[in-house]
């Protein structure tokens, strides 16, 4: 059976599901007016672009095409942008509900008659993408809209691990982040994303010192990110990134006698985490 990766790779205007998806989408989604009014076209085949940003983070799991499309289009209510197959014009930027019929025909995606199903909603979706100039002096481009979508920002951040955010453990970290996002998305749907600001804080911190040991990375119930370095039950340092620049920390370190535990917690600027770890002796296992 065809895999989703092969499906993506086989489309002329879809990039491979790994690596350069974001850049490719940026290149493809030109801020131009589409040649045709998409609301007049029904049942026309469109190449799906943006979901591949999200989908490629599921690529570590082995599922067949049908399952993956179900994940990408049904349960996750994917925000999408589409490119007209013939003209290469693009349109669209919306969160679809599961009420739409999506089918895969000969490896292409067909959005079946969206107007008929959602009537006025479609016009509303288009207006999101192409806001009335009289209302907005500076129309927001669809790419910018998509880029501000939390899952797109999360995907972009994960892609940047090893590039913008240099770390010796890039592949391991990317895989872990993707797994956590997938698990979160499975439970919360696409409307309640993990915090991109917190993830940015985590990645900035992890790339701030090349000597850091790779931590255990976790999500909190609030969608914020936590890094934990644990030597054993008596020696632990964790940092909970509340946003890009603030964190809560917990330091637990056995004292020399092995009978007493130093236990400290608090909230500080993320930039002071390493100094805090050193102060409480936790740097012994935070560093390689």
């Amino acid at each position, binding site marked *: 059976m065809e895999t989703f990766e092969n499906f993506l790779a086989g489309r002329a205007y879809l990039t491979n599901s790994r690596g350069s998806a974001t850049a490719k989408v940026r290149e493809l989604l030109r801020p131009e007016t589409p040649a045709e009014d998409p609301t007049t076209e029904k049942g026309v085949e469109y190449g799906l672009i943006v979901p591949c940003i999200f989908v490629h983070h599921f690529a570590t799991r082995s599922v067949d095409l049908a399952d993956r499309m179900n994940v990408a289009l049904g349960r996750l209510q994917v925000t999408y942008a589409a490119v007209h197959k013939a003209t290469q014009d693009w349109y669209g930027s919306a969160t679809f509900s599961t009420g739409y019929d999506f089918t895969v025909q000969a490896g292409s995606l067909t959005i079946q008659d969206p107007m008929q199903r959602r009537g006025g909603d479609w016009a509303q979706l288009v207006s999101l993408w192409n806001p009335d100039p009289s209302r907005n002096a500076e129309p927001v481009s669809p790419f910018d809209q998509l880029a501000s979508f939390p899952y797109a920002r999360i995907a972009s951040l994960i892609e940047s691990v090893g590039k913008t955010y240099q770390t010796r453990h890039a592949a391991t970290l990317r895989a872990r982040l993707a797994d956590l996002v997938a*698990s979160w998305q499975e439970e919360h749907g696409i409307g309640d994303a993990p915090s991109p600001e917190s993830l940015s804080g985590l990645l900035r911190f992890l790339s701030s010192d090349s000597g850091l040991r790779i931590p255990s990375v*976790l999500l*909190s119930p609030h969608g914020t990110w936590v890094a934990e370095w644990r030597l054993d039950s008596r020696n632990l340092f964790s940092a909970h990134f509340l946003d890009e620049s603030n964190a809560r920390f917990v330091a*637990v370190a056995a004292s020399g006698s092995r009978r007493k535990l130093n236990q400290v*917690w608090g909230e500080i600027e993320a930039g002071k985490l390493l100094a805090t770890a050193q102060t409480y002796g936790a740097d012994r296992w935070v560093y390689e």
Partner: protein
Amino acid sequence: MKDDPLPSGDHVSHYCSAHFLDEDGRPAQTAFYLKKGEDCVSVNWLEYTGLPTRSRQLDAVRKALIEKGLTIRKSGKLAVLRVGDVTSIELSDKKQRISVSHQPEPPHDPSHSGIFYPSADQALVEFIATRVAERVLEAPTAIPSE
């Protein structure tokens, strides 16, 4: 009865979604953070089920959680804790104690209980959560199958 403290020798389970497990599949500190709008960490009192084996107790809990409307995934795990291990966690302020009490939610979840932290201070809560996670008994239990 509601609010009765649980016997220290009894056990509770806590459902942990996959994103609250560490890379080794062990429930991590974030599994024991307080969720929005909750004043305690939800657990189930295993001995209250009256069932003789741990696996049957956990199966009863799984069914209760599902009947209550929670989505229980096989990628998650049920962490089992001994009540006394949790309530004996020492805090720097000796007056502060962690408590575990019965909070039944009839009709579906009569064994529901709560781990109550002594402070709403989030930094302290997160510290306590790291200590609670350390008390999870070895080999956290996979979700029982149907």
